[in-house]
């Protein structure tokens, strides 16, 4: 009996769990911009990654 309940629960829950993970994958990740060059340099030195400096203007 318990085995059947667990089996049914698994069958019912699996698509929802899969959907939840699929949705999580599709959540758009944004670029985490540093706001200060000195902080970016500190992170760059920690990670070994170079820096991408983006210069923008408004209007």
């Amino acid at each position, binding site marked *: 009996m318990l085995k059947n309940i667990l089996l049914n629960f698994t069958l019912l829950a699996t698509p929802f769990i899969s959907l939840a993970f699929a949705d999580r994958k599709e959540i758009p*990740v944004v670029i985490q911009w540093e706001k200060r060059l000195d902080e970016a340099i500190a992170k760059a030195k920690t990670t070994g*990654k170079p*820096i991408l*400096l*983006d210069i*923008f203007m*408004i209007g």
Partner: protein
Amino acid sequence: MTYPHPAVIDYIKKHFIPVRYNIQTNPDIKNKYRLLWAPTVIVLDLNGTDYHRFNGFLPPDEFIPQLEFGIAKMALEKQDLEAARIQFTSVVEKYPKSDIAPEAQYWVGVVDFQLTNDVSTEINAWKKIQEHYPGSIWARKVSGALSCENE
């Protein structure tokens, strides 16, 4: 839109520490990097020294190769020739239709020569520019060296 593109986000996340400044409100950055206009994107090393820059908006399929080219140029200027060769070759192989590809192939030739001290390696790399990018300015730049080689 370049920055919201998943491939651009992924590339930047994997390879860079991104930082952004408004040119209108940051005169120190404007002066430090001799900025004329925005948008400008600059590849800096761990110390904040600039190695490659480009102006204006670019679509993702041009933007990413430019960043990769910047990493290659930085490796070359630091005389990490093996890394430079890998990165320049990567630009050509992964983004052969990008505008920066013929220039990357040019630098493959330069790096090959520096690695081997054998001019034929440079010539072979540059022949590929004339083969694959005959209409590019880089094909014209190497044409003199290639014509001397044919004489």
